[in-house]
């Protein structure tokens, strides 16, 4: 990781550091224990998983739950569906909200104030608040049980426009003006100057959109009933539960659904924290 390049200040083990580190370790154990419980359960046989009293480590380690997951389930389909939906949603959201954020922050057009107000009020509307009317709208468009129906309604997050709007307002005007004087147009300035400058903010918006979309349960749950079209969280929650819960297999499936994002976070966590600070979400 890029952290290694930076010369590091040597920190010393003062008494307060020792106490804090021990405290941190204790809290971390609590946070990680449920993961460990899920992982160990997935490596037990189904009968051992439901033994009373429960025990942490499997007496007989077995990969049968993982094998059964791949043999019987549609887990690979769900994985691909999740990937398609999340990648599409993220690309559209980043592009569309960057354009809109810039438009609201830096250009003038008739009715801007009014439209901005309308978009801000959209912060209060989500599939949780208006799920049923949203479903009937999507139904009217004939998009129930399609990729379109899963993807497009997730592509209008007012919150992301607002975050980028705030960020674009902070870019110094001088940068754009120099380019205007050289004869560059709005679009050219946007793509060659503004977008490259905004990379950390765009990354933060992209990562949070990807997390939200990968983990989204409610909307895909409403709009699909076809197991072939389900995403990971939905397939696992609805299909696997419907056979009567097989805990070892359920835990294996859950870990598979959670793993990709955890890997992404391990590699990008510095950028994620920096992005949160950078977008002004935290620093306002």
């Amino acid at each position: 990781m890029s952290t290694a390049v930076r010369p590091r200040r040597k920190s010393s083990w003062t008494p307060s550091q020792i106490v804090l580190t021990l405290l941190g370790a204790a809290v971390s154990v609590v946070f990680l224990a449920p993961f460990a419980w899920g992982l160990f359960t997935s490596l037990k046989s189904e009968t051992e998983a439901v033994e009373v009293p429960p025990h942490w480590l499997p007496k007989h380690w077995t990969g049968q739950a993982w094998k059964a997951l791949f043999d019987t389930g549609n887990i690979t389909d769900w994985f691909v569906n999740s990937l398609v939906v999340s990648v599409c949603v993220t690309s559209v959201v980043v592009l569309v909200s960057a354009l809109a954020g810039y438009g609201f922050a830096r250009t003038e057009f008739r009715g801007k104030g009014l439209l901005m107000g309308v978009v801000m009020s959209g912060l209060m509307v989500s599939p949780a608040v208006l799920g049923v009317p949203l479903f009937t709208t999507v139904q009217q468009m004939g998009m129930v049980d399609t990729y379109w129906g899963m993807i497009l309604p997730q592509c209008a997050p007012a919150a992301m426009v607002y975050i980028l709007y705030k960020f674009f307002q902070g870019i110094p005007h001088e940068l754009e003006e120099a380019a205007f004087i050289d004869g560059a147009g709005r679009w050219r300035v946007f793509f060659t100057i503004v977008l490259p400058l905004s990379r950390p903010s765009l990354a933060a918006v992209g990562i949070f959109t990807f997390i939200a979309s990968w983990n989204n349960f409610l909307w895909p749950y409403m709009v699909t009933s076809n197991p072939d079209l389900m995403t990971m969280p939905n397939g696992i929650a609805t299909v696997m539960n419907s056979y009567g819960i097989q805990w070892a297999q359920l835990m294996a499936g859950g870990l598979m659904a959670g793993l990709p994002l955890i890997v992404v976070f391990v590699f990008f966590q510095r950028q994620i924290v920096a992005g949160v600070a950078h977008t002004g979400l935290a620093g306002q």
Partner: protein
Amino acid sequence: MTTSAETVVVPARTKTAAVSAPVRHKQGFQHGGWFVAPFLALFTLFVIWPLLRGVYLSLTDANITGAGESFIGLDNYREALKDPLMWDALGHSAYFTLLVVPCITVLALLLAMLAHHIERGKWLWRLCFFAPFLLPSTVAGNLWQWLFNPGTGMINHVFGGDTPWLTDTSYAMLAIVVETLWWTVGFSFLLYLAALQSIPGHLYEAAKLDGANAWHRMVHITLPMLRNITGLVVALQILASLQVFDQAVVMMDFGPGPENATRTFVQYTLEEGFTSYRVGYASAISIIFFVIIAAVALARMWLLRNREEAAR
């Protein structure tokens, strides 16, 4: 549900660049419209239109097939106000919010301070506290349903006792709250962590020179500097918690919990719409819910503005 940053913040008052107006004017005054057009198209189709459609449907007796709905005026709203199940569901969502919001705010702050002050292995603490948030809600729900299982789960085994967590009315919601704290605290933790990192170091150095101890530094510098972010965390958590759905239904096997004790508002809306097929009625209670959420968001805006004016 907690991931969506559905917040309402006061419109930023930044310097609009009057200085550069001539240059900007020359560069196509109307161009701006094209920048926002793609977003507005999606926004109109999937936010504005459903909202308007919801208002219309709420005045009809529409069912899920969409065939032959007739206008019935305010009957749905009249029925809703007298519907004990709706009030119960609203109560459950409110109760959940009251329990979750204070706990999560304090917990996120403490975790962020811990991760901020430990000098070694920063990435490890971040990962540990944030990792649960990276799990899909259904997976986190299943995991805790399994942990809370009275006989085969680890909670009763580790802490002793045989509490019927998921099947007793007085414990069911608590179990969901505990799961939610573990699952979602990472998001607020990250906001606090970023805010802590952005406090200028010279403030602390100056205070140290003046002889302030660690406690004074926290009370007089850290906490006041975190006031805005706390406002944001609380607002985001209130809006997200009122909309709780995923973890509650997953932990209760897609049912409303023991004696309906965990049926939340969103769940009730969806049951009316998709299980009872009463789209008109479901739309009416959705609109009522929208009004409640909007009221909370506007109240926050109003409070913020008052505070800003007081500060001036």
